[in-house]
């Protein structure tokens, strides 16, 4: 079972990326593409929403690590929201968590971006 839908919405300066489905295959490179295009277009605030994310595996981690690295390279700000307990533990275990703020709710994350502006 593997499906993935990537939706985006712009909330002021923040690009919110909704990752729905399974982040466990090459389809996940769509998330990388969306983020890369936003960075190329000058956007520096990215919020990944994992509310609809059913599963992240090692391939998904590789994708997220790549995104973290790219945003740090461009001095951007990245935040996560709506993480399940398992995904929270996964980011903790892999070290990704040290570089990203995580929020329960999307509006809390958007508030964080406002403060850091």
């Amino acid at each position, binding site marked *: 079972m593997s499906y993935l839908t990537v939706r985006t919405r712009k909330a002021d300066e923040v690009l919110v990326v909704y990752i729905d489905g399974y982040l*466990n*295959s*090459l389809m996940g490179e769509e998330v990388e593409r969306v983020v890369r295009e936003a960075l190329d277009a000058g956007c520096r605030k990215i919020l990944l929403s994992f509310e609809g994310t059913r599963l992240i*595996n*090692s*391939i*998904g*981690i*590789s*994708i997220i*690590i*790549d995104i*973290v*690295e790219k945003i740090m390279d461009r001095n951007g700000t990245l*935040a*996560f929201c709506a993480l399940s*307990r398992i995904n*929270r*533990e*996964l*980011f*903790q*275990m*892999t*070290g*990704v*968590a*040290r*570089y*990203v*703020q*995580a*929020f*329960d*709710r999307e509006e*809390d994350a958007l*508030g*964080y971006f406002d403060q850091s502006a």
Partner: protein
Amino acid sequence: MPLDISTSRPEANRLDGDRLPAGRREAFTLKALRDFTLCFARGRDFDESLHLALMVILGTCSIVKGALLLQEDGEFRIRVSRGLPPGIPPIEASKELLAALRRSIQPVRMGKPAVSKGIRQAVADIERAVPAFSVEVLCPLGARNGSPGLLALGPRITGEALTLQQRETLSVMTSLLSSHISNHRVISDIFRLNEVLQIQVRENDRLLTGMQEIYFDTIRALATAIEAKDPYTRGHSERVAKISVSIAKGLELPEKEVQAIRIASILHDVGKIGTSRSILMKPSPLNAEEFLEIRRHPQTSFEILSEIRFPYPDVALLARDHHEWLDGTGYPEGKRECQISMGARIIALADAFDAMVSDRPYRDSLSLLAALGEIRSCLRSHYDPNVGRMFFRSLRTELAGGAQEAPVFTGLEKRPSRADTLAFIDRALSDLH
């Protein structure tokens, strides 16, 4: 600070920390190993499977950048990479590097002392080719089974060294990856070899078809030569061949024998080349001397055909014996019963039948029913009853409009009503049972 997963405060959660439920890391490692093995089956092609494998390794070890290089044409070329720019030039497959790869199957950590010169040089080459890439671990791939590759891994996202568990997992994964690469090379070699063989087989088929065409043309030319001399036999050889082959197939003779019977049927009268035209065309019964001369044609056929190396057995013998009868009253040798091969018995009946229903210089053709009556009356004495049964069955099938691939019996214009003939054949067949 403890991880607060139930917080509803609007500040950020502390994701960082080491306090994970027991067994989480081990479960993650096991799942990663499972993901890794699935890569090989899920990749739509070799490169995609390598790409997926690299992603699993990077994800499992939290590494940002990595490249997989395979040896091709004496150099190591980047086959897949992540986090690196495209267009990285190949690095030299030096003797020192190849020797070092043969010695080591374990991932080599660059920070450690006692890293061999070949490995150090390779890493320096890679880092020179991609300045943004700092290689922390270099994994030898598949050098033991002759298909060397390299997996170059950059630092972890945290900047920390790999844990013991990660190093062991990496070691297992690179070992699996080595096997996958070797298997791919073996399969590619087999496919390449198979393609070469298929081209060869197609070429052989083409040559064989060409040779068969020449062969059949030669046979037909020989048959035409006889018919040119004896116009009354025009088409006779082809008709005898059709009937004989139909009987031979009905008797389920091996394919090679069927082909021998086909050729011998076409050429059975080739010896008539040596018979004078006046005898062949004589509109009245032959005298004793003429009779002797015409009876020599099977032996002449044998002598002509035994000079030819046919790809089928006993063609010349079949032609010689096509006038032999079971009771020993035939010619040229008066062979009996088991001295006469099945093929010759078949041709004898087919030849006699076609001769009966054809016009000859000294007589008109017999009616179909009369010819069938003649054949039937000579079963056991002249003709083999099994051959007769198959002959009647074949004719019956054709007259009844049954499914024969192509018509066997042609030129039977003088046949009486179909119903009478079928009734006659049915009686003959029931006698034979």
